């Protein structure tokens, strides 16, 4: 019996080795692909004058859809910020998702909103709506506020927004995100500048914790001071600048984050909108849109741009962070299982043969394999079945390789956005990388395991509570640092997988 166990464990050991080697090779490949994509983007962009888009009658109009749930503290400044975006023709649709606080009242008071006879047409089936408001002040003519019953998911709010959106493209974003003033101009660019039809496009999401914000506008970008938020910044950079840029290059991207992303409305309606049962509605939607295009046999692309266009607050403490990651895992697994027919299916091209295998192996199963790998390692050491010195050398190699890959992503940030002005900030970020494998990665593994177990045993999900930025719109216009308040319990539904 012991021999059998030892044999299984040794074989598992070999499997882990091959798995780790493949994942490391993959990261090397995506680092190289992302270099090319980022360089190309930068060079292409040096010929772009966004003023031309601003002045042209042919620039496609955009609807911004921002669901809001109990955002009373920040809603006014956030809406002002959205209304001031640079773009020739756009509308801002705020979907009040049955807030129980003063969100709607504040909006009505600030923007002089009045109920209107809106011809609401159900392109996508949604929960009941309570009313649609427009401002009596023509200065806020771009604003539409839709009040609806809360259905405990962001997808339903987004679908309601799509139903009233009047433009061919929509940008979905979290209302509490800080959007770059030129975000719409930059997001539409890949759509009008590609031979193939671009059905969706996303951009880099950055961390607002620690930044100076004034009335919903980003005044000064600063690196997060809190260790947990700083390490998340590192993770976001690696994920967006390495991962998604490479996937964008090979047209295999299956996620455009809910934090900020532009989508073709016609396709979103054709696929029936966001899935209200999904924990990761943004990924699920992107997959279904792609599947729809594949089924129609139309050539298309999903693009990503390496620019920081959206700044969001991330969980400032461990319990909220774990809740968020558990939900992301559930969303990921749910989406993968919902589209089983696409796995390794050549009908779906790169998505079926490359993206899905990657997400299954390296995003879904990797934490599970890694967890059992650690248990195996402990068993092997305890039973002296492994050469300790050699295993340490291999561990140091994995560690140094992980540090190298993440450091490269920071270099890409230096070459693209360079949002941190001081050398100190960037070096602090780079030093954080060394601690990631010890303090952050194990938490990610445990959260992923919990997510899998919750889904397996059908445990009910409670939406992760996010600390909200302490920006009071009533305060005088003075710059203030974003501080997360872990005590506030607002039940916000934040953007999904940054993985």
């Amino acid at each position, binding site marked *: 019996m012991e021999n059998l166990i030892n044999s299984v464990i040794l074989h598992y050991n070999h499997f882990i080795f091959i798995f780790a080697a493949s994942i490391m090779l993959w990261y090397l490949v995506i680092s190289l692909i992302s270099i090319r994509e980022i360089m190309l983007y930068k060079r292409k962009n040096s010929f772009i004058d966004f003023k031309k888009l601003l002045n042209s009658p042919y620039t496609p109009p955009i609807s911004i859809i921002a669901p809001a749930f109990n955002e009373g503290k920040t809603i006014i400044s956030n809406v002002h910020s959205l209304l001031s975006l640079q773009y020739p023709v756009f509308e801002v649709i705020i979907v009040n998702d049955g807030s129980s606080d003063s969100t709607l009242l504040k909006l009505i008071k600030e923007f002089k909103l009045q109920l209107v*006879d809106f011809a609401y047409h159900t392109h996508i089936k949604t929960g009941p709506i309570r009313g649609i408001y427009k401002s009596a002040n023509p200065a806020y003519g771009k604003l539409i506020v839709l009040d609806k019953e809360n259905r405990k998911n962001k997808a339903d709010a987004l679908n309601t927004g799509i139903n009233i959106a009047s433009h061919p493209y929509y940008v979905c974003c979290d209302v509490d995100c800080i959007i770059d003033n030129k975000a719409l101009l930059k997001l539409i660019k890949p759509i009008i500048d590609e031979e193939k039809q671009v059905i969706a496009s996303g951009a880099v999401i950055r961390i607002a914790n620690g930044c100076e914000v004034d009335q919903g506008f980003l005044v000064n970008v600063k690196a997060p001071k809190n260790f947990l938020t700083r390490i998340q910044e590192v993770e976001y950079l690696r994920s967006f600048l390495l991962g998604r840029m490479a996937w964008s290059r090979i047209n295999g991207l299956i996620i455009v984050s809910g934090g900020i992303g532009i989508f073709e409305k016609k396709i979103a309606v054709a696929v029936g909108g966001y899935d209200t049962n999904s924990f990761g509605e943004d990924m699920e939607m992107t997959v279904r849109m792609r599947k729809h295009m594949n089924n129609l046999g139309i050539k298309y692309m999903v693009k990503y741009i390496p620019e920081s266009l959206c700044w969001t607050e991330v969980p400032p403490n461990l319990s909220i962070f774990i809740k968020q990651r558990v939900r992301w895992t559930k969303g990921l697994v749910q989406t993968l299982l919902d589209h089983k027919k696409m796995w390794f299916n050549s009908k779906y091209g790169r998505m079926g043969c490359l993206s899905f295998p990657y997400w299954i192996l390296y995003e879904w199963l990797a934490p599970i394999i890694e967890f059992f790998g650690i248990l195996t390692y402990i068993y092997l050491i305890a039973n002296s079945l492994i050469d300790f010195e050699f295993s340490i050398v291999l561990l140091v190699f994995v560690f140094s390789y992980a540090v190298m890959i993440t*450091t*490269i992503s920071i270099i890409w940030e230096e070459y693209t956005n360079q949002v941190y002005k001081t050398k100190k900030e960037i070096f602090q970020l780079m030093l954080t990388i060394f601690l990631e494998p010890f303090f952050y990665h194990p938490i990610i593994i445990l959260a992923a395991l919990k997510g899998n177990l919750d889904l397996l045993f059908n445990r009910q999900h409670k939406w992760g509570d996010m600390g909200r930025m302490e920006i009071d719109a009533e305060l005088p216009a003075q710059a203030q640092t974003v501080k997360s308040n872990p005590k506030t319990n607002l039940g916000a539904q934040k953007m999904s997988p940054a993985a």
Partner: protein
Amino acid sequence: MEKLYFFLSGFLTDFYENRFQAYPQIVKIAYAGIFISFTVTSLCYLLVYFRRVNQAYIGSKTDKWKAEIENILTGSVIQFNSEDYQQEDITEIAENLRKLPMHKYIVRQIVVNELMFLHKNFSGKVNILISSVYLLIGLDKHSRRKLKSWRWYIKAEAIEELSEFGIHEIAPHFLKYVNSKNITLSMQAQSGYLQASKTDPFIFLDYANQNLILWHQINLMEILNRKKDIEIPAFSKWFTSKNNSVVIFCIRLMVKFNQTDCVKDLIKLAHHENEEVRKEMIAAFGDMSLVDYELHLTIHFRNETLPCKIEIIKTIGKIASNDELNFLKNLLLDPEFQIRFEAAKAIRKHGEKGEMILFDLLENLSVENRDVVLHVLDSKLSA
């Protein structure tokens, strides 16, 4: 220090000869991996550090040169915007610029960029003055050299520079890049040809066999808005092009330059196989307010696709001649929501008469249609 060196070299030699060579292959690979990762990571740190230092240094130098160049150019531009200038004045500006370290690529490029900025933003005498300065300092040679580069973005920059300063004889060279697989280079070639060609600036449309994407069209339109001296042909010439994007672009240009003589050719596109072309044609009728063709559109309505039907309704709303109000009223009973909605909006666009019709209809319509009519009658929603 010497001791440390001997200790380290001894340790490494001993490690390599007595231990490393005996290691299994995989451990050897791991050691090599650690070494490579460590080296790359260290290089990344050094890169960030030196890049920041270099940026600060280059930034300060660039700012200094930019200030000097601006100092030389701005005064002259302001002076000669109102006064006449002589050849000596151009020579003086050129001499002042030559005092800068023009042998350096970066300085030449800053001068070109500054001259381009002024050239784009000033017209008339100053515009000619800046072109003359560019030629007199020999910066066209700098741009021509760039045109020979194997890098697409350097080529694209060269095309931008040479075309901006109107170097006409180089224009035919741009044509070979019009169909480049690199869409930015092809865009620059199209824009460059349009600006630089003296005889037939739109001939690149004959050569374009790739999709003339929207961004390129916006770019070309912007040039046409800015450069008033470009010779404008009759755009109906390209209505028979096999490239649908060229046809769409030419319809837009026809509207922009209000070429009413081309309308008889435009109408022929009603049977075009491409839906986007037909849609653009319909929109053109509205943009040019071609009242006489309104009836023609309503006849075509039945056989059209949904997007074209909607465009026809919008066009009738734009023309608002009052002749097709009954046609629009009937559409309020269409089963398709979008058609009903656009028809109500088009009726509303007919002014007071349209509004009266909508108010009259309110009593007899179904609940859903009443919502549509109330929506379009609400001034806050139609604003």
